[in-house]
């Protein structure tokens, strides 16, 4: 019962609210960078509510079950992962061994759902986008796991989020060390790719393949994907904060620090997406497997040396 409460209150409601707020920050900041006014505070919510009232079209050539199930599974996986992150942040001692690995897996599922949904829609542009999304996943997963490995090494090879947080509470946050800083840099770039934002938005490049993977989605299903994206915009930076920046605790100045760290990460992601053109998928692959993996490996070696 308690866990269900966590799932609904923290995993869904709080995550969705903060995620929508973060997507408002993203849109407002983007608008200000581009000399525009930008949307009002509740615009992301209005967008989703409007989509919920729209007709849901299923293309004739689509495979129904995966097409319909993909947004739901994606949304649920984000809910579960954010619940786990909240629980480990609020009660570091109650987490189970190996939750880091589960979190990494669950963070992959939204991207996979997008791929499955796109292929199921039967649209050539969507399958083009899906094949790009697969290449994108292949490119960022290796440096992302290596970057997380740095934190695991610093926490005495413990694959528990609780232990990582406990280590940081004792020895100071991981991002301050050389290896931690490098790993955070790599992880931020991977977050950018996981959120499919410019410069890594090749799977849904609007001007090339007209929103590629999401082209056939409409109404409630599209709303679920949008909500999933917004919630990911909370879950991914929150994961980075827990792993590298010592988590967010509830009392006074610590809460302000946590909130600032989160808003800072969202702003960083926004600035990156507004100061770069879109990369081609081949260039993305080279970028992640070349410089990013190299940096992540150096970070791992540095962490091993310090240990």
């Amino acid at each position, binding site marked *: 019962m308690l866990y269900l409460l966590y799932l609904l209150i923290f995993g869904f409601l709080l995550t969705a609210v903060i995620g929508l707020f973060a997507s408002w920050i993203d849109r407002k900041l983007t608008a200000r960078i*581009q000399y525009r006014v930008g949307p009002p505070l509740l615009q992301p919510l209005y967008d989703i509510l409007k989509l919920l009232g729209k007709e849901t079209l299923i293309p004739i050539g689509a495979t129904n079950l995966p097409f319909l199930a993909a947004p739901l599974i994606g949304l649920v996986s984000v809910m579960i992962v954010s619940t786990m992150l909240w629980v480990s942040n609020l009660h570091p001692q109650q987490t189970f061994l190996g939750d880091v690995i589960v979190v990494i897996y669950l963070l992959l599922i939204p991207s996979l759902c997008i791929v499955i949904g796109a292929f199921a829609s039967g649209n050539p542009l969507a399958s083009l986008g899906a094949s790009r999304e697969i290449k994108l996943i292949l490119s960022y997963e290796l440096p992302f796991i290596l970057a997380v490995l740095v934190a695991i090494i610093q926490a005495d090879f413990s694959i528990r989020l609780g232990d990582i947080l406990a280590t940081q509470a004792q020895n100071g946050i991981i991002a301050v060390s050389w290896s931690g800083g490098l790993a955070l840099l790599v992880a931020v770039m991977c977050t950018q790719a996981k959120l499919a934002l*410019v410069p890594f938005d090749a799977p849904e490049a609007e001007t090339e393949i007209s929103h590629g993977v999401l082209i056939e989605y409409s109404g409630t299903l599209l709303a679920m994907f949008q909500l999933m994206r917004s919630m990911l915009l909370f879950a991914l930076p929150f994961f980075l904060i827990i792993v590298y920046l010592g988590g967010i605790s509830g009392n006074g100045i610590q809460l302000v620090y946590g909130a600032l760290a989160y808003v800072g990460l969202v702003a960083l992601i926004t600035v990156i997406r507004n100061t770069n053109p879109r990369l081609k998928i081949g260039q993305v692959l080279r970028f992640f497997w070349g410089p990013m993996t190299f940096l992540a490996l150096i970070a791992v070696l540095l962490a091993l040396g310090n240990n």
Partner: protein
Amino acid sequence: MPRTILPIGPYHPLQEEPEFFILTLEGETVVDIDLRIGYNHRGIEKLAERQAYDQITFVVERICGICSTSHPFAYTQAVEDLLSIEAPPRAQYIRTIVAEGERMHSHLLWLGLAGHFLGYNTIWMWCWKLREEILDVMEILSGNRNNYAMFKVGGVWRDIREEDIPVVMKKIDSIIPTLEKLHKAVMDDPVIHARTKGIGVLSKEAAIDYCTVGPTARASGVARDIRKDCPYGVYDQLEWNMIVTHNGDVFDKVAIRIGEMFESIKIIRTCLSQLPGGDIECLVKNIPPGEGIGHIEAPRGECFHYVRSDGTNRPVRHKIRAPTFMNLPTFKETVVGGAIPDAAIVLAAIDPCYCCTERISVRDTKGQTVYSGEDLIKLSQKKTEQIKADMGR
């Protein structure tokens, strides 16, 4: 490898006008391209034949919202060629100022769109904000933001007021620092280099073979600019440089257009400071039979108008050739062999303007058969024969 067809159009977020590209793909590589236009055809040439000479300037102005100076300019040149007259110097200066203002706003519009096609929406918004300044200048000078209605056979409709000149000068000066910042942002960005250098290369030989015009030709090292080669307006009395680069890729086309904007500012400033006094039009009483041609350097390349008169107050033939018509076929050279993400920007790199280019296309109700130009001529001849037979000749 299996081939797939990727349709771009007739309505697609990549293009702001309706046109239809059919890309044949192998994986992500484009192996063939086909092009269908004609979704925008309005029969401007036929319309022009039913208007008086003074009205046609307004008709051709509405061929395209971006080239709203190029077409009237070329048309008035054509009629003045027919009449063997020249507009007074003050009118020539005003025409040059308006034409260069149009070039600047057209290039800024394209630069913004190019940013958008690359997924770089910040550049898009910045360019279009800067373009507003140019449109303000044009509004001060002509009273309009896009269709300026300045051109008239034998001169211009509207004079530039003396008190406006310092205001315009100040506005033009305020544009320069922003333009320089934009220039730096585009030219020094390594990611833009990665996306545009060596993409959609048009060699010099191909540029000549395809008879390309304007920035598309100049980016490939073909130093051809009507303003230099066959001067009109007051371009031969001013100091300015023709920008030519040699790689022929998308990056060079960007570089050329940014360079031309700085030249345009130079031209506008010189023209405003040297603006001579005197009349702004010469009186044209009637149009004698004859024919005339006018060609000018539009932002996209050579814009050509041909007018034939039979002595009445309407032309019997008005022929228009817009620059995009010459630049379109280069897609065979530049897009084929590239990848889809490159195709998007390469298709945009010639700064295509389809409503200028429109020709008719004929097909049956299933959308299958498309008559070629030759077929249409044969059909026309057949009908003439039929009419002749019916009349019993």
